[in-house]
């Protein structure tokens, strides 16, 4: 097991937003969390990254307990987070954004090679490399956010609604990108409101409601589940 969450409880003030979440992610798999607005999907990812503190429970990554480490240590262990809403650095250039993703890396020549790979994967970013990131379109910004996370050379990628607010054509491109990342052996924990997309990409899925896991199973099974169809696939 690459990532293991056990009985996570998280609250913002008096409000409990995660109530006993347990999850497992195997190496080289894509696992998805689907759920409605406010279900606690982002909070789950944010607790893995060390952006929010647990009230109780534990998180293990690669056999090591990480839930009391600061965010920068968690990055250095190999977890990169593509946050909800992209959160690129608007007044830095595309290239600076990407290089910031490699902040902790010491292997300079490898970083250069990585940067080249990412420019090959996202040619649009190469064309815009010295433009400020805020001048990019939504889809390009999403690619930049993904590229920035990949620059850390992560073992695992946390992705929070990468398809949010994007046109269908672009969503399709994002899908291909995620597939390619998976082929490169990076484990992915994908949060999506677009359940169709998520269940097609994932090996395994969790359904989150009100801070609790109400359903879990192999993605194809959930895709055919009547409950899921009605609530999330709009069929």
């Amino acid at each position, binding site marked *: 097991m690459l990532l293991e969450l056990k009985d996570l409880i998280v609250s913002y003030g008096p409000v409990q937003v995660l109530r006993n979440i347990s999850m497992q992610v195997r190496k080289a798999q894509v696992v998805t969390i689907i759920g409605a607005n406010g279900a606690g999907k982002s909070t789950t990812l944010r607790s893995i*990254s*060390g*952006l929010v503190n647990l009230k109780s429970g534990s998180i293990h990554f690669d056999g090591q307990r990480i839930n009391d480490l600061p965010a920068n240590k968690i990055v*250095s262990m190999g977890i990169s987070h593509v946050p909800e809403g992209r959160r690129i650095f608007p007044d*830095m250039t595309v290239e600076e954004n990407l290089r*910031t993703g490699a902040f*902790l890396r010491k292997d300079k020549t490898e970083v250069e090679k990585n940067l080249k790979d990412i420019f090959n994967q996202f040619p649009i970013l190469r064309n815009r490399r010295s433009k400020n990131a805020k001048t990019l379109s939504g889809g390009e910004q999403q690619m930049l956010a993904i590229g920035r996370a990949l620059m850390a050379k992560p073992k695992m990628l946390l992705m929070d609604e990468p398809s949010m607010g994007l046109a269908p054509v672009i969503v399709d491109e994002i899908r291909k990108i995620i597939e390619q990342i998976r082929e490169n052996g990076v484990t992915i924990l994908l949060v999506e409101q677009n359940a169709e997309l998520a269940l097609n990409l994932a090996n395994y899925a969790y359904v989150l409601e009100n801070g609790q896991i109400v359903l879990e199973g192999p993605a194809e099974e959930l895709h055919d589940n009547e409950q899921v169809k009605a609530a999330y696939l709009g069929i």
Partner: protein
Amino acid sequence: MQTGLNALFAAAYLSLVAVGLVLIFGVMGVINFAHGELFMLGAYVVVALYTNLQMPFVLVVAIGLIFVGLVGILMEFTMFHPLRDNPLGGLVASIGFLMVIQASITIGFGVRMEHVPPVTQDVIILSEKVRLPVQRLFVILSAFVCLTALWLFLKKTKFGWALRASAQDPEAAMLQGISTRTVSIIAMFIGAALAGVAGSVTAPVISVSPVIGHSVIVSAFIVIIVGGIGSLEGAVLASVTYAFIHTVITTFIDGVIADIVGLSLMLLVLIIKPTGMFGTQDRV
């Protein structure tokens, strides 16, 4: 022409103070009310080591830079870090700190104006009417060197990028492995050190007293509010530009008018574009 040179001189040290203030605000989100006192401390380093102990001036300026920078780090540890979730608390604490510094300096040196003997009396005569005292040239050059160094730091170095990234989106910066604590400490050191250098290099040209911090801080505040806080480099440019305009008005027309112009601009900016004239982005 002569007034232009005077304006350049005043803009030089004012922009050092303002840029430091804006750097601290941009990275840590706190307004350091004691920033003028850091300028004052820099001047008193010169009084203590140069006037009294007669150490070489350039060495004293270097000590002023490092010493005041370290005071900045002390402020981070004692106030801004413990109060990191409470920007208003940080501001209030910095007002307290301001009083502590002023009181300590008054106890140590008295309230008298200190006259720092000029390092050199040389004057560069550019023409019959235009004279540039070397002492003032030194202030201008120091500002130029410090600001260029800061610019290169922000644009070319890894930690400079970390500072800019943190100023633009602290949480996203953390997700890249950047430690906000480290970044805060760096910002405090640089911000304070710039004010300290400004105080040190100008000490021989002004009358040094425990209250000189006030006169620079008001102008510095106007500078950063008008300049805005979009990106750090933008703010640096804006501070320098505005500091220059402000001092030009002060020297050509009148200081009060410059303040009025500045304050009106500030009001206008706050009404029309709360992120600042050159600012581009809201803080998250």
